[in-house]
């Protein structure tokens, strides 16, 4: 006959004396998860929990907004300034329909009439010029210049200015006037554009400037930057006004992103500390026979009692050690 006794699980003692268990569900991590400065202040009251979650969701929403905004700015800048590195004239997407390509020196007849078919007044363009090597187009422009669209046909060119005619639909053209530095290199009369048929020339890439970046900027080559910015603004707005809607996102984010990241990061960091710092120290100490834990037996007649030296000054209470 035996006595059965219902007992709870024989727990590993870690949570008992090593005091390392932390609060279940929030992740026991050095970095990342678990937002609360004092984990032990968690409230169980559902209203307080909701409020806390909403607060955290707000922070997350605003955080995403800021992050996406910064990311977008960087993307717009890159796309605006560096786009010449990638675009070729004929692949352009311009603010108006159609494709632009440099025109003859003379504007076409009646070009000033209709606004359609012209580039917007004041729109900025970047021109990059690069030598053409045989049939190949050089990868990087050797110079870049910024010019503005001037549709007024009476606007005279200054001596150091260069006008490039950009036309649409073969019927309408606009003039883009570039300031002096370009003109020094290329006297207007001899400006041509290079093509595969003209190996002696320069490839003139006339590209729209900053507005282009707005419409065409892409992150990682496929994701439209402005969508990201809009998403960020929406999240920020939700976070500010009605964070409760963001709470499900917050929970998913914590559970599937932050917690795993925290998990991995913690182990990496602690693993490095343990194996690359503590372990060598431990091995060296062992070599020298030092053991703070005094596991070696003492000879007979000696005592395992460790006498306390001087009594501490009563002010020791002010210290945590």
């Amino acid at each position: 006959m035996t006595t059965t006794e219902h007992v709870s699980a024989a727990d590993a003692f870690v949570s008992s004396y090593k005091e390392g268990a932390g609060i279940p569900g929030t992740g026991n991590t050095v970095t990342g998860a678990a937002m609360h400065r004092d984990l032990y202040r968690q409230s169980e009251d559902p209203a307080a929990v909701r409020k806390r979650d909403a607060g955290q969701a707000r922070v997350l929403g605003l955080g995403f907004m800021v992050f996406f905004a910064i990311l977008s700015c960087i993307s717009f800048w890159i796309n605006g300034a560096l786009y010449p590195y990638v675009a070729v004239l004929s692949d352009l997407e311009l603010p108006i329909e159609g494709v632009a390509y440099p025109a003859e020196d003379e504007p076409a007849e009646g070009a000033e009439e209709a606004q359609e078919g012209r580039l917007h007044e004041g729109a900025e363009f970047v021109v990059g010029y690069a030598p053409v090597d045989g049939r190949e187009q050089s990868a990087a422009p050797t110079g870049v210049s910024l010019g503005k669209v001037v549709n007024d046909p009476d606007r005279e060119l200054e001596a150091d200015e260069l006008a490039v005619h950009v036309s649409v639909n073969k019927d309408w053209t606009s003039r883009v006037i570039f300031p002096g530095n370009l003109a020094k290199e290329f006297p207007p009369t001899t400006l041509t554009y290079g093509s595969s048929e003209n190996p002696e020339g320069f490839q003139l890439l006339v590209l729209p400037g900053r507005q282009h970046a707005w419409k065409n900027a892409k992150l990682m080559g496929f994701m439209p930057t402005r969508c990201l910015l809009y998403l960020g603004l929406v999240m920020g707005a939700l976070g500010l006004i009605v964070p409760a809607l963001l709470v499900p996102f917050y929970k998913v984010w914590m559970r599937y992103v932050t917690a795993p990241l925290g998990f991995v990061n913690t182990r990496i960091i602690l693993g490095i500390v343990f194996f690359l710092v503590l372990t060598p120290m431990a091995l060296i100490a062992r070599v020298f026979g030092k053991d703070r834990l005094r596991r070696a037996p003492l000879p007979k007649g000696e005592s395992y009692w460790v006498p306390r030296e001087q009594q501490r000054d009563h002010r020791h209470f002010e210290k945590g050690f």
Partner: protein
Amino acid sequence: MSKPTYVLGVSAYYHDSAAALLRDGEIFAAAQEERFTRKKHDSRFPRNAVDYCLREAGITPADLGAVAFYDKPILKFERILQTYLGVAPKGIAQFVKAMPVWLREKLDTGSMIRKEFPGYKRKILFGEHHESHAASAFYPSPFDEAAVLTIDGVGEWATTTYGVGEGNKLELLGSINFPHSIGMLYSAFTYYTGFKVNSGEYKVMGLAPYGEPKYVDAILEHVCELREDGSFQLKMEHFDFLHGLRMTSKRFDAVFGGPPRESEGTLTQREMDLAASVQVVTEMAMLRMARFVREKTGKKNLCLAGGVALNCVANGKLLREKIFDKLWIQPAAGDAGGALGVALSVWHNYLQQPRTVPGDGRDLQRGSYLGPKPDVELAKAYFAKMNAPYREVAPEELPKEVAKILASENVVGLCQGRMEFGPRALGGRSIMGDARSQGMQKTMNLKIKYRESFRPFAPSVLAEDVSDWFEQETESPYMLLVADVLEKHRIPMTEEQKKLFGIEKLNVPRSSIPAVTHVDYSARIQTVHKDTNPLYHAIISAFKEETGCPVIVNTSFNVRGEPIVATAEDAYRCFMRTEMDYLVVENLILEKKAQPEFKDEGNWRDEFELD
């Protein structure tokens, strides 16, 4: 009249959070957090306990003279790091589990505590763990001079410490340091016999009388070297707790013949023998330490604290060996008492305040009734809300009424007076029964505690009559000493009965107070004193008048697995969840039969872990 100085001690973040408040050095209020949050061994910051203490004194944190924490976190952290240095490259699993909480929170315990006391501008003070235990053992004791011995699992470095207290001075003289620890040894055996560490130790103690101490030699030879002076060393090859997630190692299994018992597995004679053996080793160690301390300090009195001092069987043996003339044990011997200890330590050591003992042999802990009283008005409102009928009885009539009910073999829950501070119920939040009754033990086990336990219940006896019934002359108001039932009340067991096992053996009547007598005729006594708990004393006196017996069963007022009840509401819930017959809240009596059906929120049987 100058304003009184308040010192608040806090224990938190490890196990058994609690708070204790001194007013001009006098123990004013103390409570454990688990009673308020209803979560056993709650280790969170004791918000509720602190609030209670402040409320009781009618003060705000700004009025506190000092706030003290019972432990030195940085020293503890150093020990933890040194442990890893001692075992690396083993121990990564533990390291990863332990470090995050330390790095993010525990190293900054000071600010975590400060945030809990808005308005308090002074320093946060830190006592040393064992010093806090020692202070909780000595300062409330009735002695002007005494030796002090504290034994627990581990504090910062020390696991066992002895010292001397004189007047208001407390000097610690020597320690045994981590990892060598009696508390750890006992916990290792707790783990090995399949119980839960930190809560199953007292089950091992209750299991011990069923076994033979067969393994004592094996323990002393392989696992724990014990020297004449009580100092000892654990042989760490047998333990995994330094680097692993188990307490014991495969070597340990080899010495004791097999793997640890699975929880929910069947208890066999092996577990009982192991329990008996580790109990014997613990007693041996304590006795040798006591002799050593007596010799070293020359003091006639001994004060005990620390988790191992909750081992009342060992305490009883220590008392009877008469190594010291008098013994005093802190009722809240575990970490909860650390809150009280650090407060006292700050008052006498840091603030250098004097100490005077009453001189009449009574201690300063006031029966350990230091918590909140049940609020009768709130109770009445709650009963009204629950449509629970009750009778209000004149206070003078109450003891007699309750005694009559008890004498009719009813099980009565009592919720009166200030709540006890410490793990035992002492007549403030107790379930009472007739100790003479044959069936009482079984009834209480099955219908109240919902368990088959190999432990009997414990008796409360009138202080004046204790030596008429037990081999005990001195007082034992906190149920920390075990003594045998006097021969004249025992009923010897027949040979067949002696061969019975476990519960069967326990169910054999062994004395005229069978409900509280263990298989070896021992009992864990509480002496009840008129001045510290007048109502409880009056009830038992009335019972004695009615029946001639001054002994009743006193078990803690809670369903299995939950902390002892605090408020009338908790008491009513427990009353309705069990098959208790009567509930007494101050002077209100409720009868079970008259109660409406109780809708329980949640399923407490799933919610609370098995006891």
